[in-house]
């Protein structure tokens, strides 16, 4: 028996099969969780839940002309922006809002990956998101556009800008030598390889 597609599961759910939505949730949980984990570690759990609840509510209106993943990321994106608006700027006060962090040095062993993550996390949010969805979630630029409410050409422009900025940060963060050469030479491939590494981010978050 072949594995049902997202759309088939969605149809099964509409036909009254409650377990079909559970399967959809299981299937995409790690991606959605990581989407939040890397940015709002302390609230990732709640936001992930809210995203799936939101998807459940909106699923009956989902027309199926985009992929279900794109639809999920669109909801997650709105949740993320709302959460970031509610949180005060990047100032963390002692004894007030000491948030846990998610991905740690322990989880990421390869030096190239460590430096790339250091650089990636310094990008402006809108560039981080397109990079993540493109290289880690394998969404096409048109799909990213739908998820983030952007023109596909804007997505392509942001991807180019992200690669450029990544190169600049990596040049700042490394000395001339083999490590820098590898990073700048294989930037796209190393970025892609980071996907599976960061997918474990949520497993490190305290309950």
């Amino acid at each position, binding site marked *: 028996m072949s594995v049902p597609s997202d759309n088939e599961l969605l149809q099964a759910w509409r036909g009254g099969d409650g377990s079909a939505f559970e399967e959809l949730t299981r299937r995409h949980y790690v991606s959605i969780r990581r989407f939040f984990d*890397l940015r709002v*570690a302390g609230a990732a759990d709640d936001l992930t839940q809210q995203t799936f609840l939101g998807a459940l509510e909106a699923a009956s209106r989902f027309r199926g002309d985009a992929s279900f993943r794109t639809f999920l990321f669109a909801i997650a994106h709105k949740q993320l922006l709302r959460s970031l608006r509610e949180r005060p700027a990047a100032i*963390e006060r002692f*004894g007030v809002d000491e948030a846990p962090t998610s991905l*740690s040095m322990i989880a990421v062993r390869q030096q190239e990956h460590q430096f790339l993550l250091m650089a990636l*996390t310094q990008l402006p949010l809108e560039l981080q998101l397109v990079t993540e969805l493109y290289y880690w979630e394998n969404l096409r630029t048109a799909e990213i556009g739908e998820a983030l409410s952007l023109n596909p050409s804007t997505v392509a422009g942001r991807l180019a800008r992200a690669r450029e900025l990544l190169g600049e940060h990596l040049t700042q*963060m490394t000395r001339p030598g083999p490590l820098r050469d590898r990073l700048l030479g294989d930037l796209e491939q190393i970025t892609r390889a980071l996907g599976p590494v960061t997918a474990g981010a949520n497993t490190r978050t*305290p309950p």
Partner: protein
Amino acid sequence: MDATHVARALGLPPGTRIGRYTLVRRVAMGGMAEVYLAQLRGAERFAKLVALKLILPQFAGDPEFARMFLDEARLASRLQHPNVTAVLDFGEYQGEHFITMEFVHGRHLLELMRAHRGRPLARDVALTIVSGVAAGLHHMHELRDHDGSPLGLVHRDVSPSNVLLSYEGAVKLTDFGIAKAVEHTSATRTGAFKGKVGYASPEQCRGEPIDRRSDLFALGILLYETTLGARAFSGPNEFAVLGRVARADYVPPSQIDPDYPPALAEIVAKALAVDPADRFATAALLADALDGYAHAQHWRLAPARVVEAMTTHFGETPPITSADEASWLATDPSTRVAATSLAGASIVAPTPAGPRRRLAATIAGTLALVGTTAVAVTLVARPSEATPSAAPVVDTAPAAATDEAPPSVAPVLVPTVVIAAPAAPSTAAPSTAAPSADPTAAPNAEPAVDVEPPNKGPKRRRPTKRADKPAAAAVPDNLYPPGYRP
């Protein structure tokens, strides 16, 4: 985890003998070692309280940990400075290594900062603390080998949880577990980043060689955080933090506090320069800059203000030992505790203290405690001059580090120590919540010392010198220059 490990997770029972030391209670517990309050007993009722640091059993057999532990002991034994916790002894008992250090009766700077709930410390208190740490650090940086050649040591883990503040106002840098000579240091060897990411220097984050100026960056972070009440470098994950540090990308002080003095902001900016060559060259120069600033404000950087801050946030100084602890310490613990194997095991309930015991306890407790208070800190002196008097009697400092960054993400090999609740061997459990109870902190993160023991312990007998030492809350006017009100 076998039964022995479970037993050890609870800590060794009070009364356990380790060589010449008798454990009183565990005061801190970390990823790699645990720290106990212990009593050293000598001839003729000689008794002295110390901090005893023991490698956790699961690491005891690991040569790498044993080597780091020994390195720490060797290195720290050379340090002799009022702003550095003194190492007293290094020993081995039943195959486990331990270090004893002066016991610092007080709190971590991190606790004091958390108790401020996002507000900055009073600026003169902050400056007193940072310049004290700078003095201790400078001593370490300047350390020379027996042949006079510079050792080039770098602490690498200067952070609020490694700064101890005694209730007497002394400021002490502690935990030399990962301090190293310059040439061996490489920060980002795969998976082996040492130190806490939020207190690393840009060159540490980039995995480049470091020297003392790396610690100077960390001092800059301490200055920033104590004077602003906010983290200098934070983020949703370690890489975001490391990346910000690598670029020295911090929120300018004036954006957090519009009234932040530009002169102080300049000192912060210089300490937090990305290029080490742009920073203060030595910790002493940073201390001088702080001193100059304080002088211009007509402040005197004095332990009295630290005492005042401690009292305000943590209440009156609690006794070191509870009444029950003092009581059984007064007896010969060896008659009381049956099994004292380090491997863990049996906890023997203390016998109830009878009237005779109580009397003995009062005497012994007084003896033990007079030590601490006899050491009245000279209030007008700078901390670096003031604390020497503290050194002889009270000892030292648990290398306890509450986790600064989220507990679960402490990098490997870094001793993250959580202060354990006081385990009084008595039946009555202290229940008072710590005044600074912090919902985000681990439930047992508040040291027990905070809690008034259920039975009043032996009254601390103040030496007659007590008159010299004002109650912490009421600092005499003459400590400050005319016109200055803290």
